[in-house]
């Protein structure tokens, strides 16, 4: 046998082979997740897009050229204008005005660009007065005609001559926030009920699971229709908005609760949770210190993936006319305008809110996918 004395025999025999502190060694879960998320290029781009959409929603009043409900019957179904930066070789950002031609036989009004009529536009122009977030009175708009009375329809106008761009921007606020608020409600319900269900088990778990199964078994559209019909017509738009949000999240929480329950059950038996119990940690501490941080990242990723569902639900409800009602502007409400084939044929820009929905749903899904992949930074170690 080998010469035993040649081997180190003390407690300090552990040998360290790298002395430099690598950033990774002292990085916590969120830092590791961020690093991992950053590697997912598509998700990063999607994340920037989502951020952009939400910023648009937040600063809707300022970003929209005019009041979304301001109607001008003269410009019914006016087509989108092009922005030109130069006029006669001189710097002059402008759009062209409209000329209306009436067809002698059909009496249909068609808009043609009036090459003579120059409408100068600018940034931070004075326009319709509004209250930022319903609080701060202001009248500046990011972009608009220098003369507020001039027509300015970058994305065209609708049946009442309202600016589509402004309406889509305001729709972003409502539609995107419904997703967010709905998911927040689902998240709270899901974590609490799913957590209780998973951690305590027994009859309480049984009861919660049966409720979830019951809720999931009800066809959603008829349920929503029934509940939406119960919302009093006299309610203020803001109340209707919240009522619809609650309705949508009523179903949404069930999936999250199951997710949380599964995570909790699988982790409850994990050694590190047993270790925490043997350390003398009390149940509430074990949950807040060990369990919640362990599944929170997964749940946030799942939540991101749930927002598109919420947005689509709102769109579907409003499209069917049982969700939000004008004068609230949401993408679903806007799409309802595009129900009429005739209208779409003459004014295809009425479909723009649909593109906005697709864009928002896709970017949220890409973002959620990236977050889900990053949610467990320890899986490859």
């Amino acid at each position: 046998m080998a010469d035993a004395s040649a081997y180190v025999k003390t407690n300090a025999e552990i040998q360290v082979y790298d002395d430099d502190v690598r950033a990774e060694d002292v990085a916590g879960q969120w830092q590791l997740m961020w690093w991992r998320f950053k590697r997912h290029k598509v998700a990063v781009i999607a994340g920037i897009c989502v951020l952009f959409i939400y910023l648009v929603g937040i600063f809707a009043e300022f970003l929209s050229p005019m009041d979304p409900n301001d109607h001008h019957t003269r410009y019914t179904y006016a087509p989108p204008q092009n922005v030109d930066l130069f006029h006669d070789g001189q710097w002059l950002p402008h759009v062209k005005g409209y000329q209306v031609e009436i067809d002698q036989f059909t009496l249909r009004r068609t808009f043609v660009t009036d090459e003579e009529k120059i409408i100068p536009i600018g940034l931070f122009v004075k326009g319709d007065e509004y209250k930022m977030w319903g609080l701060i009175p202001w009248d500046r708009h990011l972009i608009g005609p220098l003369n507020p009375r001039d027509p300015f329809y970058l994305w065209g106008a609708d049946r009442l001559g309202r600016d589509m761009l402004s309406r889509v921007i305001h729709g972003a606020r409502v539609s995107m926030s419904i997703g967010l608020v709905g998911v927040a409600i689902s998240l709270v319900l899901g974590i609490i009920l799913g957590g209780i269900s998973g951690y305590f088990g027994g009859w309480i778990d049984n009861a919660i699971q049966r409720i979830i199964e019951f809720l999931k078994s009800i066809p959603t559209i008829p349920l929503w229709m029934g509940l939406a019909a119960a919302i009093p017509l006299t309610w203020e738009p803001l109340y209707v908005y919240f009522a619809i949000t609650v309705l949508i999240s009523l179903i949404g929480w069930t999936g999250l609760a199951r997710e949380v329950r599964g995570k909790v059950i699988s982790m409850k038996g994990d050694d590190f949770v047993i270790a925490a119990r043997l350390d003398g940690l009390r149940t509430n501490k074990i949950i807040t210190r060990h369990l919640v941080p362990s599944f929170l990242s997964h749940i946030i990723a799942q939540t991101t993936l749930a927002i598109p569902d919420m947005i689509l639900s709102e769109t579907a409800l409003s499209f069917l006319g049982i969700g939000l009602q004008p004068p609230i502007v949401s993408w679903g409400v806007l799409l309802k305008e595009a129900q009429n084939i005739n209208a779409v044929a003459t004014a295809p820009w009425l479909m723009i809110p649909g593109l906005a929905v697709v864009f928002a749903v896709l970017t949220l899904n890409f973002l959620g996918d990236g977050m889900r992949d990053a949610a467990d930074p320890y899986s490859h170690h």
Partner: protein
Amino acid sequence: MTKTPVLEIRDLQTHFGAREGLIKAVDGVSMTVNRGETLAVVGESGCGKSITAWSVMNLVPKPGKIVGGSINLYDRNGGSVDIAALDPKSAEMRAIRGARVAMIFQEPMTSLSPVHTIGNQIVEMIRLHQPVTKKEAEAQAVRMLDRVGIPKPTERMAAYPFQMSGGMRQRVVIAMALSCNADLLIADEPTTALDVTTQANILELMKELQAEHHTSMILITHDLGVVAEVADEVAVMYLGRAVEQTDVFTLFDHAQHPYSRALLGSIPELGKTRGQRLTAIRGMIPHPLNRPLGCTFNTRCPMAIKGACDAVEPDLIQTGPHHHTRCLAYQNGYTHHFDKKPEGAMRPSETIGGRAHV
């Protein structure tokens, strides 16, 4: 007694292109399996023993790839085929897998389908490699199950894997591996997941069957007790390299490489080490991305010499009639550095000088 090789691995390189860098999981492994013998490949986690086995099957998991060396598989007539040069998906490779080289895993469920009866699975395996009717295959399967010691084999044909204990499942896997009469059996930690009583039975069974079928075997294990039980030859691996190969008796009595000797010294021995301290190897196994320069063991080696072991990569040197070691203490031009001769040191034979890192 003349030994004819059934498998010769020469300078095998299997690398993994991970995001953090290139992991040389197998980095210049050479070893030989003789016909009818068992070669035990011993090593700790990350030494590349399993990847070596996967390379022989030409089933290296992604993103791994065989990037160099040869794996020559000989048939009984002396003809050979280089597995490393074959496309993993080629018909030729598929014909070799199962028919000539079969594999047994640590966890029997990885090679058993949970949704088919074991009878179906063995019959399918037999018919894939032998031109027999279903009836004949079934009869053969029952004989196989009986042979590996499964009680009531005819009834057990209709059982699903989950209805059996771990030991019984491993017997089924062995029956499947043997039913195709492979020349070479690769067993990757076949008894690690089993209890000691079951392990003894399975090892016994494998020895018997090997003698019956003249099968050669590569036994991947970390357990020197298992090696002592069944191996003829032993290859010791450390961090992607074979550091020593010799027959099992020589290894247990006259191991040369400091790592092999440390490994042998670090296992408790019945009735010998009670109340004493074990001779531990200092330090931890380096991360595969953080491999030491020179001899990969130099950071933990009690004999390591500064300036030599941490700079020069030792070659695998023939140190005896049947003994290969990868250590500078046996390499020409370096032996004089080592004032204390390792035990069992023989005269270093001729070799090309080691490559120095600059």
